[in-house]
């Protein structure tokens, strides 16, 4: 009879220990990240490239591949040229399913961000729309949101290039 | 010495402690018994057996235990 009591006592202590544990890992609440909208397709840096390229196939994007100096180093960067902007991706080899969008770069002022800023706008206009930059220098204004960053290249006060970059 | 035998008897009535001289080796006294033994001895002889004295050679036989008690008593 006594042994039964002890077994229960021990099981109880073990249970208490188990119940007390199990921490919750905080889910990182990604602040609302910026994305670029073109012809009804939302393009976010860091996403898979295949669906986006599929959606934009109507504009038959031409591509150019940058192989590395060494054949041994794996992976290659690719640029797809689209009207007014270009998408730079990284893939392991041709036809790699999880080819990832690294950058979206504006080529001219025929396209604008969803918030209405295009190449040629003034630095002040950018600050009016996006507020204080996370990183501000004479040459650039950068706004970081979660795992992406929106960057405005500046030359004497006016925007000369705009790019969405992934930080992964 | 008599009080010691009584205490030992209360732990293990079936053992003749006068003849035994390897209580630990024979597995007669396990760690549970030793702790109880120390509590009883401390209250019976008004000594306090410190933790570092819990050694096999001090508890291997009734006489060894008694030597330990006297040693602690006069120190």
């Amino acid at each position, binding site marked *: 009879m*006594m042994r039964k009591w*002890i077994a229960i006592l021990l099981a109880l202590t*073990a249970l208490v220990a188990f119940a007390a544990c199990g921490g919750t890992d905080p889910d990182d609440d990604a602040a609302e990240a910026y994305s670029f909208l073109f012809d009804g397709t939302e393009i976010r840096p860091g996403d898979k490239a295949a669906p986006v390229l599929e959606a934009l196939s109507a504009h038959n994007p031409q591509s150019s591949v940058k192989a590395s100096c060494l054949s041994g180093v794996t992976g290659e960067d690719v640029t797809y040229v689209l009207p007014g902007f270009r998408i730079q991706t990284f893939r392991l080899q041709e036809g790699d399913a999880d080819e990832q969008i690294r950058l979206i770069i504006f080529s001219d002022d025929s396209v604008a961000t969803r918030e209405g800023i295009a190449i040629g706008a003034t630095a002040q206009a950018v600050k009016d729309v996006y507020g204080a930059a996370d990183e501000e220098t004479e040459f650039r204004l950068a706004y970081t949101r979660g795992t992406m960053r929106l960057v405005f290249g500046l030359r004497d006060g006016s925007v000369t290039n705009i790019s969405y970059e992934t930080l992964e | 010495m008599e009080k010691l035998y009584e205490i030992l008897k209360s732990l293990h009535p079936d053992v003749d402690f006068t003849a035994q001289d390897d209580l630990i080796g024979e597995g007669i006294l396990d760690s549970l018994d030793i*702790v*109880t033994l120390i509590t009883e001895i401390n*209250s019976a002889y008004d000594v306090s057996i410190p*933790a570092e004295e819990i050694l096999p050679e001090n508890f291997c036989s009734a006489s060894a235990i008694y030597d330990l008690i006297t040693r602690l008593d006069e120190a």
Partner: protein
Amino acid sequence: MQFNSIPFLLLLSAALILYYCLPGRRRWYVLLAASYLYYLAAGAEYLIFIVYTTAVSYVTALLLQRRADAENAELEANRDALTKEERKARRAKGKKQRFRILVGGLVLGFGMLAVLKYTAFVLSGVQLFVPSLRIPDLLLPLGISFYTFQSMGYLIDVYRGKAQAERNPLRFALFVSYFPQLLQGPISRFGDLAHQFFEERGFDGARFRAGLARTVWGYFKKMVVADTAMIAVQALVEQKLTGAYVVLLILLYSAVIYGDFTGGIDITIGISELFGIRLKENFDRPFSSRSVKEYWRRWHITMGTWFTDYVFYPLSVCAPMQRLSKWSRAHLGPALGKRIPVYIATIVTWFLTGLWHGAGWNFIVWGLLNCLCILVSQELQPLWLRWQAAAPRLSSSRIWGCWQAVRTFLLMGLIRSLDCYRNVPLTFRLWGSMFTDFNWGEMLGSLTKLGLTPADWGVLAAGILVLFTASMLGKREPLRERLSRRPVLLCVCLTLGVIVILLFGSYGIGYDAGDFIYGQF
């Protein structure tokens, strides 16, 4: 600075050359200098912590020693003037005062360890209630768990009169910071280690060769077996694979922890032997133990004895526990009564052992599970005796012995996997998946996806085989002792060993040279 890094080997060889050049009396300065150089390389910012612990234990010990000497002298002076009772009363008063000094020293010493190691853990618990709390990430000094326990053990030994307090601060600093054992122990006792530093010893060729053999053997275990298996273990943990993969993890992690920890200790003891200093053994063929209780007398021996001598016994005979023992025997009957105090002491000891391993629930649960196994097997002792009586021939046969060893090995491996997953609910889910998700075929088929090529698996299997045979051959007398008597054969083995380590070891750019698991505690 890892044992398998080039800077360490350079420091070691320089220290060895200097050590044997100096005359006997001066040699320990080399060890002290090497120890502090080694500690500096790990990070100058850590230096303040080891100096703090050394100072605290040095001062407290001296205080204790002076009080004890004064008390003895006074009692000696008027031995006849006082009656036995007065003498006993005065001695009790003196002991109480010294106890308070001891507690002061322990609080300061363990306090620093607790602050550095457990604040984040405690605060993360508090954070559940106070979300806005910011947890500072405190830096954990190298080997703080080991040198703190070692110096606190010294303090308690001085209080108990089992050791004479060291007067020379530099000599004491060497005892605390002796570099081979800084990274992962063994936790030495002052009485065993301190005097060896200052003994006059000539160069003992046989000891030196045995030390060299043991060091190379340690490197082999660590770099060929442990670090190779660790790659697969890391892959298994990252991908949280279930079912048969968990069994694979248990087996692999046993090889990792054996290779890494016993290998590391072999290097430590081997290096120490090069200086002619004998350290306590930390392992005694642990995987051949037949019960969990026996396992913990063969695995990490110096930690086990430390907790037994300084936590378990004092706890089980301290005044409050004695009162509890009297009360429980009076109210709950003799059988249950005598168990309560010891079980409580055991649980507390194992809780602290788990906590010492790391600031995390998985370590605490690991400790409690070990405790559960020991207590349950102790409770089932009569059952085991009845079984032995019923089938004497079978229960004493070799097969039964092997079955017990395998059972203990698997049980310990299972509990130890808490170290890998470091998240208790996840670990239990994965343990459960072992019985529900039978994907043995898939597991055996996809071994190469775990970061190891078939050739690596071959090396690992061969390595484990070598370990196993060496352990079997070394039953009566460790191989290296026999070898050290035959220098030429030893030289062949050493050369082969170095070649095998250099070729088949997992080190360098391709692998992040796994730092010693126990080095992070």
